[in-house]
């Protein structure tokens, strides 16, 4: 690192950290140095070892080798208690909050002032008010966690760290669950914290966040630290190359769509979930041949239910037509098998729960949903040889690595798992492809590949309905964008006629006219 102004001892210095889990080396001889009062980004693909490194810093794991120096002092961090004592606070990707406790109770948990609760709560209430004023971190101290939004919950996590007088704040993929507006607000808070002298480590896989928020950035690839650079002296393309190890195309390469006749028509579709809550509140949509309709929205606004009802995984009411023919929304003929028979393919949002059986071989997973196919039958038995041959073809075509059909699904990386699911669905040559979060937890290289396949299907004149919480993905892939909020379609836009700001407002429920 060529820092000209070495003004102070580094807030954190890691020297030669190594950590293995069995045969997998998650961190190889990693050294970084973070100057106090800066925002330092750590970027890398899934499985690059970012989270492992931060877990070591927070005392979750013990490094096999290496030293941790905090403010110029060699520090042992055997557990979270030691990390807290050393002034380190961590905001995990999956929040560590007690759902049925109040904000205040969550904040004092583990940092109480004595055996009795009331004095601790009273003191925390006062401190919280001061912190809220200082950093614009407003939350109702008496609200119960499960009743507040994720953005608020994240603030509670930050407040927890500040309440423990953290000087160093680590945030792991903090924007995954936030709307663009909430994310912007978060970054304002982070800058505020930085101005007050706090040191922030931001772990993300989003290049844009690194470019916008950080002062310096370290890139990790396959357990190694490949580079540490000043953010102002780099570019997204350069960072992506460092992450993947080769040149990557960040934007999806596609020709303009030539939409044809309507393939899927949705009229007044409503979905009520198991708890009796209406999740989809009467929506109308049309997806045409040769176009990708992207559904944008913050997670939990009915997109999942929309996909599931179209895929035959849950009942709904209203009407849907495929190629002009009505499909039942409940009762016989509305299940996933009937949908597949009607040439609707579905790449579900949660591939580990709905797309794959993690314990089963790849070749078994390649058949699921299509195991009735006569090509896979041999009398009353499955023709496993044919199935395996088919799997090998798909593995080759979709570049699944390792190219071994006998491997259990759980032993593939996220990107390769997704390739197995996408291969299974796209290779059926469906009229309509439903895709949910196609690249969630997928590395950049595989994202590029999966996006290409989806666009190729579109170019064959098929219809694609894409649901994604990643606006970047929506902008990159979709030919038309519909925004969902609270079970309603807030509006439809063409990608070149709108921007993230407008979509962000729609995603937050501000209607087009008011915006």
């Amino acid at each position, binding site marked *: 690192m060529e820092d000209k102004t070495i003004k102070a001892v580094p807030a954190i210095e890691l020297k030669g950290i190594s950590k293995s889990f069995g045969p997998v080396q998650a961190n190889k001889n990693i050294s970084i140095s973070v100057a106090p009062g800066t925002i330092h980004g750590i970027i890398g693909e899934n499985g690059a070892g970012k989270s492992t490194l931060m877990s070591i810093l927070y005392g979750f794991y013990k490094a096999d080798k290496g030293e941790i120096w905090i403010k110029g002092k060699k520090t042992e961090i055997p557990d979270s208690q030691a990390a807290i004592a050393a002034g380190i606070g961590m905001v995990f990707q999956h929040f560590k909050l*007690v759902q049925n406790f109040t904000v205040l109770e969550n904040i004092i948990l583990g940092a109480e002032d004595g055996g009795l609760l009331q004095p601790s709560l009273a003191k925390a209430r006062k401190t919280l008010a001061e912190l809220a004023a200082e950093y614009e971190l407003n939350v109702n101290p008496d609200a119960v966690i499960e009743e507040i939004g994720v953005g608020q919950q994240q603030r509670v996590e930050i407040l927890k760290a500040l309440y423990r007088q953290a000087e160093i704040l680590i945030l792991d993929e903090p924007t995954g669950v936030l709307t663009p507006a909430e994310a912007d607000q978060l970054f304002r808070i982070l800058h505020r914290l930085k101005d007050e002298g706090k040191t922030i480590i931001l772990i993300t896989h989003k290049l844009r966040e690194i470019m916008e928020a950080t002062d310096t950035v370290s890139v990790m690839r396959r357990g190694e630290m490949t580079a540490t650079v000043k953010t102002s002296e780099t570019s997204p393309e350069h960072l992506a190359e460092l992450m993947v190890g080769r040149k990557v195309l960040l934007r999806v390469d596609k020709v303009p769509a030539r939409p044809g006749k309507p393939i899927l028509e949705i009229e007044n579709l409503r979905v009520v979930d198991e708890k009796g809550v209406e999740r989809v509140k009467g929506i109308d949509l049309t997806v045409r041949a040769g176009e990708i309709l992207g559904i944008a929205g913050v997670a939990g606004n009915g997109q999942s239910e929309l996909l599931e009802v179209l895929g035959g995984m849950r009942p709904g009411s209203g009407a849907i037509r495929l190629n002009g023919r009505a499909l039942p929304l409940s009762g016989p003929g509305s299940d996933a098998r009937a949908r597949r028979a009607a040439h609707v393919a579905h790449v579900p949002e949660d591939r580990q729960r709905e797309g794959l059986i993690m314990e089963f071989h790849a070749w078994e997973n390649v058949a699921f949903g299509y195991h009735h196919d006569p090509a896979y039958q041999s009398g009353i038995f499955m023709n496993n040889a044919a199935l395996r041959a088919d799997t090998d073809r798909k593995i080759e075509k979709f570049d699944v690595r390792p190219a071994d059909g006998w491997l259990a699904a759980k032993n593939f990386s996220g990107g390769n798992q997704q390739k197995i699911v996408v291969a299974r669905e796209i290779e059926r040559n469906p009229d309509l492809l439903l895709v949910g979060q196609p690249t969630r937890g997928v590395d950049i290289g595989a994202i590029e590949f999966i996006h290409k396949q989806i666009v190729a299907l579109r170019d064959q004149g098929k219809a694609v309905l894409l649901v994604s919480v990643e606006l970047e993905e929506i902008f990159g892939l979709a030919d038309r964008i519909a925004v969902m909020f609270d079970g309603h379609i807030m509006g439809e836009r063409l990608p070149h006629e709108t921007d993230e700001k407008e979509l962000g407002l729609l995603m937050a429920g501000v209607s087009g006219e008011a915006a």
Partner: protein
Amino acid sequence: MDFLTIIQVLDSTVRLATPLLLACLAGLFSERAGIFDIGLEGKMLMSAFFSAAVAAVTGSVWLGLLAGIAASLVLAGLHGLASITFRGNQLISGVAINFLAAGMTVLIAQDWFQQGGRTPSLIGGGRFGPIEWPLAESLREFPLIGPVYSELLSGHSILVYVAFLAVPATWWVLFRTRFGLRLRAVGENPAAVDTAGVSVVGLRYAAVAICGVLCGIAGAYLATALQAGFVKDMTAGRGFIALAALIFAKWRPWHAMGACLLFGLLQAIALRFQNIDLGGVVIPVQVMDALPYVLTVVILAGFVGKAIPPRAGGEPYVKER
């Protein structure tokens, strides 16, 4: 039914609810910390035997009580070891403890006392005697208040009062102390406790130990206060009824007391009114004996509504990234 009969049934309710209440609170501590415990029955049984045996041998009920608590604690430690340290299945560990206790108690009793798997009957200082409240005798004839005071409130063994005082104590510990906050948190989301720098393992062992102590008191009460000595399988499913009461109470101390009193009342009625004659049709005693258990099922199936157990209950805690 006259007033005195009602008072007597209620008095009997209090006595019969006591072991249920102690076991229920024991389960409450354990399950609030995320450790399911179907071994309440086994712990009570083990304690019942050792308290009776030691009281019989030494003639001191207090030594008996300590022995009972110690025996129950050993089993609690076993459960902790299996489910916390080795992250085993909590239900299987609980079942094992129940079997272990059912077999061991009779085996040791036979080997020790040669009385067919019982302990000798406890007499004098070997039993917890009733504690008469001041003026209980002179107030007895006073209408209404008299019987309530001297029959219902006064004249129970010390362990009955301990059980009922344990209710507000439990509430206070759970909701007013740091320990209680952490205990509840570890049953809901142990990761939150762990990242806050507090030991999940330590908290869970503490909860399991408290559970052991309370089960120990419950067992000792059965053998040295409610009855005078240990007999085979004397807990008679009380540990399971306590679990039912715990679910009925949705893991809340005051509600647990209500639920245990209700189950105690059912048992008291069954004891008091055997062979009820309903216009020529005699309801056999077996039906009355089975009634509390049948009603347990009915109440649990129909009247509890949605009981949400502590979210991390039954799950061993494994650190994850």
